């Protein structure tokens, strides 16, 4: 048989050969390294260098935040500002000196992106500006964006995405009043769905500034699916005010769009699994509304069987998709 057309070996294949006694322990161990299923010396080196660098930067950044939060009585207001600002400036200078494209530079910019938040929070606390909490997060996003673009580092963008979610959630939940109406319970979730859907579009269409790997898309996808699920449950349980439930129709629309994109255009079984879980939650809520009052526990039994059946069906579908894509280990 032509060796070029043979499939790549998976961990299960080598485990089974070891189980059958075809290869001994030392051979199994070396085979795992040769096939790239276990790390070799150079992989360990790269991994430890990155882990220690990014871990060290994150721990030191957290230590500064904890220290400021402690409000140590011996520090004056000026000293606290000086401490926060000097650490921030040191991180940026460190990034420039090391080179923004080096791992050290990226780790330093990640620390800088995180430190903007505590600095703004301390500013607001000290001068009582009267600003709404969402404004802090909006300012944080705006100030962090240039550094995130410069770093081209996915963890920096993850911080920006999380802070942007907080900003949009707080703005729509506490401040925004469309047409002079009162606060809307559904609007923050609708806003979060739109924000994260837009983020997915941007990450997928222009991947270059956002670093390597798909986990940023998956993070935005999990946020979007979480918001959409809440909208869907709200819709089927009819919890919203009159007219408000229109927004909740975003759930089926988002699920359909997500299925089309992540199944047909760019296969992502992880996000399809999250979507399936969301669909199961909403369908169960829909059926629960009708059957929960059935006497003698019949409603609960029906719901139990429904959840079991739907999840088993979803698992079979996902397993087949993974087999097609050769993704499962």
């Amino acid at each position, binding site marked *: 048989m032509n060796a070029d057309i043979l499939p790549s070996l998976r*961990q299960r294949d080598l485990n089974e050969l070891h189980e059958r006694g075809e*290869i001994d322990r030392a051979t*199994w161990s070396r085979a795992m390294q040769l096939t790239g299923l276990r790390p070799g010396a150079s992989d360990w080196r790269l991994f430890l260098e990155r882990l220690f660098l990014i*871990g060290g930067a994150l721990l030191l950044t957290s230590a500064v935040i904890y*220290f400021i939060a*402690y409000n140590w009585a011996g520090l004056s207001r000026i000293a606290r500002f000086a401490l926060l600002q000097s650490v921030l400036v040191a991180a940026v200078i460190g990034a420039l000196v090391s080179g923004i494209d080096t791992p050290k530079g990226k780790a330093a910019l990640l620390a800088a992106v995180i430190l903007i938040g505590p600095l703004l929070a301390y500013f607001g606390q000290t001068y009582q500006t009267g600003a709404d909490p969402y404004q802090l997060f909006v300012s944080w996003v705006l100030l962090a964006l240039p550094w995130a673009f410069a770093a081209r580092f996915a963890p920096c963008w993850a911080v920006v995405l999380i802070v942007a979610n907080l900003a949009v959630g707080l703005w729509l939940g506490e401040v925004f009043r469309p047409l002079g109406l009162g606060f809307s319970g559904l609007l923050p979730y609708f806003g979060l769905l739109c924000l994260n859907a837009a983020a997915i579009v941007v990450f997928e269409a222009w991947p270059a500034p956002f670093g390597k790997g798909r986990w940023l898309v998956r993070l935005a996808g999990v946020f979007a699916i979480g918001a959409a699920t809440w909208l869907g449950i709200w819709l089927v349980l009819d919890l919203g005010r009159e007219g408000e439930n229109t927004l909740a129709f975003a759930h089926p629309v988002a699920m359909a769009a997500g299925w089309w994109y992540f199944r047909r255009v760019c296969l992502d079984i992880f996000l399809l699994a999250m979507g399936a879980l969301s669909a199961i939650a909403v369908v169960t809520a829909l059926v629960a509304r009708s059957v929960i009052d059935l006497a*003698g526990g019949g409603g609960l039994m029906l719901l*139990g069987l429904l959840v079991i059946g739907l999840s088993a069906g979803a*698992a079979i579908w996902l397993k087949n998709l*993974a087999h097609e894509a050769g993704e499962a280990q």
Partner: protein
Amino acid sequence: MNAVDLFSALHREGLRSDAASPSIPERKPVSPWYARALLGVCGWIGGLFVIGAFGGIFVGLFNNAPGLSLLAAILVGIALWLYRRGGDNEVVTQFAFASSIAGQVAAGAALAHLLRPDNHQVVFALALAVLQLVLIGAMPNRLHRLASTMFAVAALVFAAHNTAFARWLPMAVSLATVAVWLRESDWIAKRQDALWRPVGHGLLLSTLVIEVVPWVETLTNIHGSSRYWLSPFVHAPALALLVLALTRRATILHRALAISTVAILCAASGLAPGLAAAACVLLIGFACGNRAITGLGLLGSLAYLGLYYYRMDTTLLVKATALAASGVALLAARSVMALAWRREETT
């Protein structure tokens, strides 16, 4: 790399007497980890609905210990039968999992009637742990074994709560985790992969949950107690054992560096032991080439950093000191390792 290339390479390295590849087993579809997680969450919820339904059908069931015991035996028996008959069929195994969860809730309620946990908390929790250990052995299903391992550790946490053993439990769990994963090759060779891999995954998750989830962490809390000096040593044995095993083929210098890093990290993060627990999970995940476990370790350390802020047993100044010391320890270790690697390359 395909089989032909691999066995040629192994032959060249002297690990095989000939370059011929043995027959590769036929590939069956396998569920990815997130599909198994979906099954686990839904099966658990489905099981709770089912036991709730039995509570509705048989009025007064939850006040009747013999009735609960009988129901538990029937439901767990059905689960066992389905697992043994159903093979890999997802529909059958999901029914079996939900049936078992419902049976376990019924068994727990029956034990609560018999043992009165208010007065006999340790006996009650130990009985639940024994039940889970029996289920790990009996149920031939990976998802069930993973869940039972986590339930067994949870039961042990409750059993140890308010006893001297609580302080030693996190250490015992992380040591057990490392011990299981270091013997991976042995249990594969003994055809025990289906038993030990899910147990290993359950122990990894439990190691993180014990240190990271705040209310669980308080049950085994040693940090605010008079035994706070134990804190830096909680995960040090597990990390040291793991690092010694991973570096067994490295030079003496590298081994010494690795062990020094573990010692410094454990000492520096003594008041934040979740960092060492997450490091344990992270290293096992990377060593096993399992991206999901590596990601779990990273997520666990980030979650710990966020939740550590709200812990009430130490001041923010002490926490800031522990984090700063750990950060400096990591950066210093990186610099020393880079130096050693550079020196090795030049020689």
